[in-house]
């Protein structure tokens, strides 16, 4: 197992190099002169030249990439072209906020989504099942932006229970986490339900039942663990999506996260920050995928990552 993890981590290096090349070229294919965008409408030609020099835009692409990579392996992502602050500092200020928001949203999604899914599966076609699956459908379909503003109006303006935005106490976290987590909750509920139904129809469940096991043990010990594999896959993918996709929630709730930083940087053509942020998210995505694969092995002993796999 450890060997597998180390091998996967080593394999991540070429993936990340690939990502760095990809991001590096994509931002440079966006039309528009970044020096001009950074300098602003009113800036003088001399200043635009100055920004162009700072961003090495006069150099060839290979030179730019070489400088970028040389600095990167030394842990230096350069400076934001807009604020002239180190990119690593900008990212480290924001990333923990996004991570916290995403983790909270994920926690909500897992808690509510899985319980709703399990109950729905065991009481198929009951009132609860129909109701929660309808709710899930709405949850998947509701636009985050609209949902966020509705939550603000209800919980902040009308009821006055929770702050409408910003970051600080746990109370600030509730609305954005709910908003961000709702679609995932719905998704997890639906996946859990169908996966559970699938497993519940398997022979070994019938066997377990005919052995006279209590239904609770059949459900939680025999069925759930096996039903979890697709659920965990979705969770892993969703976690990555939420990390990068929190931008709308971050905007509505003025949450100082990395999504907002990234979008602002794209609009400003602030190459160094875009590159840094995408690379950071890519690293996390790779790690999450690894964690998911390791969890598979735990959930289903038939899945092993030993040397046998190579044979």
């Amino acid at each position: 197992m450890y060997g597998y993890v180390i091998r996967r981590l080593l394999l991540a290096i070429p993936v990340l190099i690939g990502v760095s090349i990809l991001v590096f070229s994509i931002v440079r294919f966006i039309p528009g002169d970044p020096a001009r965008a950074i300098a602003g409408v009113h800036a003088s030609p001399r200043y635009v030249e100055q920004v162009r020099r700072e961003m090495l835009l006069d150099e060839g692409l290979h030179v730019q990439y070489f400088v970028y990579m040389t600095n990167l392996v030394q842990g230096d992502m350069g400076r934001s072209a807009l604020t002239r602050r180190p990119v690593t500092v900008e990212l480290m200020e924001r990333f923990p906020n996004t991570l916290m928001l995403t983790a909270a949203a994920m926690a909500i999604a897992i808690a509510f989504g899985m319980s709703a899914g399990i109950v729905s599966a065991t009481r198929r076609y009951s009132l609860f099942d129909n109701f929660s699956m309808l709710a899930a459908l709405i949850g998947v379909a509701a636009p985050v932006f609209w949902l966020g503003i509705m939550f603000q109006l209800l919980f902040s303006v009308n009821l006055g229970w929770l702050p409408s935005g910003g970051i600080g106490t746990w109370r600030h976290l509730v609305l954005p986490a709910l908003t961000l987590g709702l679609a995932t909750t719905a998704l997890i509920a639906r996946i859990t339900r169908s996966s559970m139904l699938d497993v519940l129809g398997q022979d070994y469940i019938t066997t377990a039942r005919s052995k006279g096991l209590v239904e609770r043990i059949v459900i939680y010990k025999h069925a759930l663990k096996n039903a979890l594999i697709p659920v965990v896959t979705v969770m892993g993918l969703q976690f990555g999506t939420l990390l990068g996709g929190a931008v709308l929630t971050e905007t509505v709730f003025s949450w100082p996260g990395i999504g907002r930083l990234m979008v602002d940087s794209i609009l400003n053509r602030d190459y160094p920050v875009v590159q840094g942020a995408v690379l950071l998210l890519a690293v996390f995505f790779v790690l999450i995928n690894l964690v998911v694969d390791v969890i598979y092995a735990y959930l289903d002993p038939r899945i092993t990552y030993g040397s046998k796999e190579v044979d």
Partner: protein
Amino acid sequence: MKKWLIGLLVLSLLAGFVVAGCEEPVEEPVDDPDEPVEEVHPFEDKRVRQALNYAVDKEAIIETIFQGVGSPSSAPIVPAIFGYTEVGPYEYNPEKAMELLEEAGFGDGFEIELYHPTGRYPQDDTVAEAVQAMLAEVGVTANLTTYDWGTYLETVLVPPEMAEHDAYMLGWGTVTLDADYGTYALFHSTQWPTAEVWYNNASYYANEEVDELLAEARVTPDRDVREGLYEEAIELIWEDAPWLFLHNEGQVNAVRSNVEGLIHHPLENILAWDAKIVDEDEQDLIIAIGAEAESLDPLKMTSAPAATVAEHMVETLVYLAADGSLEPALATSWEPDEDGASWILELREGVTFHDGEPFNADAVKYNLDRFLAKGDFEGQDEAAYAFLLEEVQEVEVVDEYTIKLHLEREFAPIISHLSHSFIGMHSPAALEELEEDEVVEAPVGTGAFKYVSWDRGEEIVMERNEDYWGDVTELDTVTFKFVPEGGSRVVMVETGEAHAIMAVPPTEIERLEGEEDIDVVFEDSVRVIYIGFNLQPQ
């Protein structure tokens, strides 16, 4: 079956080519004597440009798209700017537009390529569509091409031979509140964009009289005389109509009614030093604004949010009041030297920076040299807005509280330019401590408030400066929160999480006006939105 089909196809194609080939050299006979024989681009005719100005209903755009916020352009610059003369607006009169087009020989209409940005100015694409619809009413077909802001400027700020558009939408904020910056850069014939330099006279407007007036106004120190010169120039420009003059942007702020004394400045600033909260013991004012300051370093500041925040902590030599007048700040008086090419400024005595360092002529020289990359800063990077002072050749310390600015040539607007919030005076001792490549993050100025903290993406907090040279503010702290979403800002002022918010979205104005404890404040902005005509069509 298939063979004869292919044969038929080939034959008909051939026939098409033959017919087309025969038709090509045959010119349509000109049967109407009024019809221009030589191909004249409609925009080369002044009457056409005026006609288009009459054809667009500016009032309707403001009412329907901006919920009444803003006003139709009545000059190329807004009323808040020194040198403004009311010469418009062009009223909405499609009949007159049709007449003028008829006179010019374009009664049958014509087609133009209209370029516009999206997401840069409020509702810019909607405005472009409205203009398109209104022009269609007088027979002018405008084909819209939309660009994202990052690529837009390099598409329209090009030399005439590279321009592919007939008209382009742009905005211009005269951030100095002096007509020079709002006219010279946009209408002087030396300001056509070139392949190397993106100057801003993208209409390729050239009028010798206007050129002379604008050039003279630049070097005339007497403000009354200057006003007269701008009046003449603006009348000529208005008549020539190199633009379709659209509207002056407005701004809408909302303030809880227990807050008094906030200044709503036309430069899209909200200023709190005279403010107090009437019924709260704790005087902690919170203002929500839409965008974060990109920097608080004079070298890197480029936006109104940066200016708004900085002005509370860092002062300029001259203060530009909301009514457009220039008031003493860190300089108490200023006057041109006899030759007119240098200005002498007397500085305020007994002022200290927040770190206890004295404010004096050396400090001013240090700051201006750093801003301009001159003197000890020669060879280093200049400020983004260094162009404001590009006429300054040398900053001379005359004595402890007198400074002399040597200009390359006479330049009357220099004092207006010095009032710009980006040219604030920072403690030289604090600037010295910056390492190479480091920028100011915690400004040390002389202002009414002292820097406390800056949480990126979230807020900047400052506290009262007890040792302020002027009236010490009643507020204990001021916090600027960065709330990008307009609807969220509205919620904050409704719940009391913010005492004031900037830029209320037009759709929310009516709702906020209905609330008892919230005042909605309408203020002009300094930006005009226009559609420039390409006067040098290729």
